[in-house]
């Protein structure tokens, strides 16, 4: 089980890269960027996993030392929260750009949106 999960996150990362590189529709490229982002978020969450550990929330009557011994690592979860927020901001910007590009070029096809050359 150990290495297969990590290989799965790399597979999702490759799917995201394929969507960015091979697809011509802008919306599909946006979805590819999102998939890429979430693949790295999954990798971060998996890194903090501890076998048999519980959620890192202090419940009533539990001692902090015991929580530190048995819970999964909360630091990658904090990193993932930040990364999700960054991905949200990026998504909003990408969608706004795609809508404005449609206004100017009247198509979502990347092959037509090619005024810059050289």
């Amino acid at each position, binding site marked *: 089980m150990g290495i297969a999960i990590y290989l799965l996150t790399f597979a999702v990362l490759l799917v995201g890269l394929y969507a960015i590189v091979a*697809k*011509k*529709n802008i919306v*599909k490229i946006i979805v590819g960027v999102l998939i890429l982002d979430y693949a790295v978020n999954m990798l971060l969450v998996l890194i903090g996993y501890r076998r048999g550990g519980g*959620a890192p*929330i*202090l419940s*009533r009557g539990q001692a902090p030392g015991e929580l530190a011994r048995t819970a999964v690592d909360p630091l990658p979860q904090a990193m993932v*929260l930040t990364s999700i*927020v960054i991905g949200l901001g990026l998504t*909003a910007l990408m*969608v*706004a750009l795609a*809508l404005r590009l*449609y*206004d100017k070029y*009247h*198509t*979502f*096809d*990347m*092959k*037509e949106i090619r005024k810059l050359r050289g």
Partner: protein
Amino acid sequence: MMTQGMSLIVKNTAKLVTGFIAVFGIYIAMTGHLSPGGGFAGGVILAAAAVLVILAFGRRGAKGLITDAQCHAWDGAGALAFAVVALCGYFSGQFFVNFIPRGKVHDLASGGMIPLANLAILVKVGAGLAGAFLALAAFRRLGMGKVA
């Protein structure tokens, strides 16, 4: 269609439900130091309530409640409140240090300055996402374009 809103059933349901969604978002932000959630999750839920109002009543219909200027103002105010909380750390010596006495564990007032930071982030994220949706909703209905 985007500007006129949806049918009567949707409008009445939205009128009933929006308040509860907003309160739920504020609850998640306030207890961020005790259970999962925090400022960002609460802000997203608050913005979801605003999005529901915009979708149900249309952009023109919701203009009394949610305007562009209000979203900008609350956005900036939330960010400034977070900066003020961080700068108040100078009262205890350094930047961003906790300056509120910590209470007992599991209490609502036990997080120091973290609940204040959570509320600032709630305001900022809620206003920011609602403003972003409002700005995107300004485009007219688009066709499909060419797909690949």
